[in-house]
């Protein structure tokens, strides 16, 4: 296996790991966030 292929596979694996990590962080953040009544003003 050439070096480029190894690097590509490593980055793809790292990307999958990062996506999984993002999923966990977003989920944790959502469950911890206050649930206010929808407000009149929003950005």
């Amino acid at each position, binding site marked *: 296996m050439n070096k480029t292929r190894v690097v590509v596979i490593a*980055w793809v694996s*790292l*990307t999958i790991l*990062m*996506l999984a*990590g*993002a*999923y966990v*962080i*977003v989920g944790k*953040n959502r469950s*911890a*966030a*206050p649930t*206010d*009544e929808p*407000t*009149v*003003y*929003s*950005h």
Partner: protein
Amino acid sequence: MNGQPVHDNARRSLVAVVLTAIAITVNHVFALGSAAYGLGAALIVVAVALLLWFRNSRSTIALTGYAAMSAWIALGFGVYKGLWKGVLRLFLGSGLAAVSNEYPNPPVGSFAFEASGILMFVGGLFVAYYGYRFVTSVWESRTGRPWRFGSSFALGATAAGLAIIAGYVLSARDVFTPPANGVVRIGVIAPTSGPYSILGTSFVKAVQMAQTDAKGTKYRYELLIEDSGPDPDKAVSHVRRVINDEKVDAVIGAVSLIGQVTQPFATRARIPHACVCTVKSIGDGGYNFTNIPSPEAEAERWVAEAQRRGIKSVGIIWQNYPSINNHVKAMKAEAQRKGLAVVYENRFVDTVRDFRPIISAGQAARPDVFYIEGLEPGLDILGQQLQDANVRNIASVVAPSVSEKPALFEGAWYTDSDLEDIGFKRRFEAQYPGVQFATHMMPYAYDSFRMIVEAYERGINPAVYLRGIREYAGTAGPITKAPGSGNFQSTPAVWVIQGGKPVLLDSQGGHTPVTIARSVKP
């Protein structure tokens, strides 16, 4: 084109550009809306056009244009937006905030937003790599010599990556900076005109009282008072003036509608924003903090008092307003938990002046108590019409204390701040005769100023100081905050309108006004 390597690298480079452009499009939909599709299409069309031009003409201009575009995608979208504002914020930022108060909790978006940021970063790397391979293979085919600088480029890229990570760690940290000329400038943003002017004015006075009380301090504390007005859209220019133009060191704000406007400005300016408002999502724990009893705490105390009084059913009449909606939502949830029946509900808009049909319908439901909550001028009109309808079984959260005519609510009980230090209220009224004391806001406005002063006097970045507070001896009883939270919590008490004035009940439901319990000096 010259040679197979050029073809292969050009094809791979274009694939990387197209895939990254898709990630860029998804990521920018959240900020640009449908314009993001135009951005993505432009990136792809221009890249394809430049590559076709190069293939047909071998033009150096086309090659340079394509290389420049690849560099823009790799650096602008991949490194800056994908890595710095995406991956490093999400992972490194969250990790640093978990271990040190010197780092703020980063804002976290939806999974689609965060995932597209990650893909933008990784895609940018591939765009950079294959763009580099493409350009160097063209160089090799033109010169007939092998490219010998690959190792140097790899080393340079690795060093740049490490420098970016180190740069993020250093730049994301909030450090204490002594104020210029020894003067700390604190913005006070509140609606002192319009329907919330009573609240806003008394809020400002409470901060001014705290400023007056802050004697013998190392630094001088100046207030920049700004009337935001009641309209959040118009408040934007006021908030921008105070934070962006005047560059204050901290902000103390009032009223949720305005706090929501201030929140992103404070985050961008990296200054603390202590908001005396009930919309908890304003308090993100990074730079924004809410400081007032939570709707849940009010609800818990309210329902406990209702049960103590033998109340089994409640009719609710309330104004559609964020903080009031949150009070009612929490009260209904707590009532359901404790078996208190809600037999009538009516939410009115601020333009309603004839409440008689609403009151009649409520009376038909025969609740044990009417929960009413609103803001002036509707509140007192509702109070008058309740009195005219001979409705005396009234309860609330906070509302009678903000009434201009509390006598209209004679006998009504309600939850409000546990103002143990009644001397605070007396001092306020002596200092600012004629200014209404809004019990649910004043102690927290006063304490918010104290917290910021304490941070500077101790040589701690004020945002870091606020993040680190777990317990605080507040003017209206103990204030607590969970690690990572942006919501200071405090427990309300039960008040009653007697003789046309608010009287704080003790925990046994007696009528003993609480006397001075602690010093309120900063």
